[in-house]
């Protein structure tokens, strides 16, 4: 839960004006467009948005795992503990990945190598960053598997990924990710492929590991329920930009951006009876057809004004810790001298 005294510390990760572009038919288009945010130590930051909003691309940019030749970071800074990640060589990045920052992916089947045993893959992570003997590594992987709630870990180390269920595989992925006690864990839709009772187990596990290891987490998800249960702070993305950022309580009880408001009303809730859900007309514009100026949500927004297509809103603070990018709010108007 958010504890404000600890959040005054220097951020663990700072992302400033990040622009990540993808090559489509020979031209680069920004999939992430001038995104800035911080992650403080021990904080769980949720990133929500629909498919194609750039949330995964943003996390791949932080990890420097963009597909070569297709995606590239065009501008901005990614600062982890004072070090600029975007300027690092592949070799230097390899030291950071898996040791200081790790990632869990959505599909636990495709993110493991099917021809190696669970133990082999776990030990690989350990060998990459620490000098330990084979016996120690095996011992440690058994302990890791145990810590993520796998029963019979001594047997599972010698099994192959296909012998495990989806939930077990995701536990193994988490064990790999936390093997070197990273300071930051990026979880990209970690429970989307799982059934709801298994999802509950995995969320509980992630939360307890975060508390024990004093880890920061970036939780990427499209599920607002997961956000509400897990996160301290939430970033809402739409079409490559951050449209709203607030602590979890403010976001759910006092959303300000029309997109956030509509999204909240679009999910059916167990404890209410609604004849009709709010829906957002139209679809997210494709990367190639993004409007050049103005708000990217303007063409679907019920509150759109003529200025919305000409003035590009800036993420501005409307109250302490609550930022919105919508020109309905004075704080979002572009500052003097800044080109929209």
């Amino acid at each position, binding site marked *: 839960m958010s504890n404000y005294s600890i959040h005054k510390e220097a951020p663990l990760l700072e992302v400033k004006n990040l622009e990540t572009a993808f090559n489509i038919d020979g031209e680069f288009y920004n999939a992430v467009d001038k995104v800035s945010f911080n992650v403080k130590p021990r904080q769980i930051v949720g990133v929500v948005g629909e498919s194609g909003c750039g949330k995964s691309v943003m996390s791949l940019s932080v990890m420097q795992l963009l597909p070569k030749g297709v995606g590239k970071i065009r501008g901005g800074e990614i600062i982890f503990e004072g070090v600029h990640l975007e300027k690092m060589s592949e070799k230097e990045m390899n030291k950071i990945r898996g040791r200081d920052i790790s990632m869990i992916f959505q599909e636990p089947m495709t993110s493991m190598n099917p021809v190696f045993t669970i133990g082999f893959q776990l030990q690989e992570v350990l060998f990459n960053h620490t000098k330990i003997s084979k016996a120690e590594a095996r011992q440690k992987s058994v302990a890791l598997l145990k810590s993520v709630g796998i029963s019979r870990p001594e047997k599972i180390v010698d099994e192959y990924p296909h012998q495990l269920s989806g939930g077990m595989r995701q536990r193994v992925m988490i064990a790999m990710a936390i093997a070197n006690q990273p300071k930051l864990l990026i979880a990209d839709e970690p429970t989307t492929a799982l059934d709801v009772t298994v999802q509950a187990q995995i969320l509980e596990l992630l939360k307890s590991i975060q508390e024990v290891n004093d880890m920061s987490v970036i939780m990427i998800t499209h599920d*607002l329920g997961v956000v509400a249960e897990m996160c301290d702070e939430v970033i809402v993305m739409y079409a490559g930009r951050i449209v709203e950022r607030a602590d979890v309580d403010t976001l759910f009880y006092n959303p300000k951006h029309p997109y956030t408001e509509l999204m909240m009303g679009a999910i059916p809730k167990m404890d209410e009876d609604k004849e009709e859900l709010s829906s957002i007309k139209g679809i997210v514009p494709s990367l190639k057809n993004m409007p050049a100026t103005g708000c990217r949500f303007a063409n679907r927004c019920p509150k759109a004004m003529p200025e919305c297509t000409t003035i590009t809103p800036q993420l501005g603070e409307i109250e302490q810790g609550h930022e919105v990018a919508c020109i309905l709010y004075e704080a979002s108007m572009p500052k003097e001298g800044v080109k929209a």
Partner: protein
Amino acid sequence: MSNTTLIDNENLLEIRNLKTYYPVKGGFFRRTIGNVKAVDDVSFEIKKGETLGLVGESGCGKSTTGRTIIRLLNATDGEILFEGKDITKLRGKTLQAIRQDIQMVFQDPYASLNPMQMVGDIVSEPIRNFKNVSMNDLKDEVMDLLTKVGLPEDAYYKYAHEFSGGQRQRIGIARALALRPKLIIADEPVSALDVSVQSQVLNLLKQLQKEFDLTFLFIAHDLSVVKHMSDRIGVMYLGNMVEIAERNSMYAEPLHPYTQALISAIPMPDPRRKKERIVLEGDVPSPLNPPTGCPFHPRCPAAMAECSQVKSALKEVKPGHRVACHLY
């Protein structure tokens, strides 16, 4: 939605002790060496005009149930009564005829539409199969259907790949509506869609239900979506129906320990609500080798000695609320 006023007390569909097994072949002669009991003795009924929701986790048999009802799969045992007529054993022309009355909307809007066909041909195919209509009438009817599901008329000449996921699902719905069926089986119709598009499709389905007097069997894994759509909800676990009740009764007072865990496991989009969560141990067992007795007993927090021996039958505990559990 509560369209209680529209619901007749007449059963449109009645399922009695339905069993659908998938044979497992093995050995030198590819003999059947076992059965995956995907649906194992399930009974329920759907009244005219209502929406019955089927929920459960992957492998619980909810999709197999839907596919058996529409006869894409053959039942191993049991009866499917549609308007009082047994359709379990129908073949050939009589089976064809029943398909006019029961249609299906599939989960994957990418895989369930033929990429080589124009949308107009996709939607008109069911009509061409069953009715003799002139080309002009056919086209008018399809245009009308496309508008009804919220697609532009020029969609007629386009191909499925030119549409987004939500629009493709609308095409699938138009195709299902083409023959004005009485029952539509919707198998996870929105689980491949984003929330904002999901709500569009859910609203559309409700609106069409009123307009065309439809009865729905709504299959989904998302309990909040099912509750939003259904009048009654059936919960399945490992091929068995463990609980079936009117939706508010199911939500307010779930009786089966599995239903209780399932409801408590759903992350609520409300940060102020801290609830007691029942976290189940382990995974769903393989339906190839289901546990003896109650299929849920190895994970059940309330399991008793008899649970591992005897499977409880579905019994009515409160009016309209049936549960299969030895606790009651």
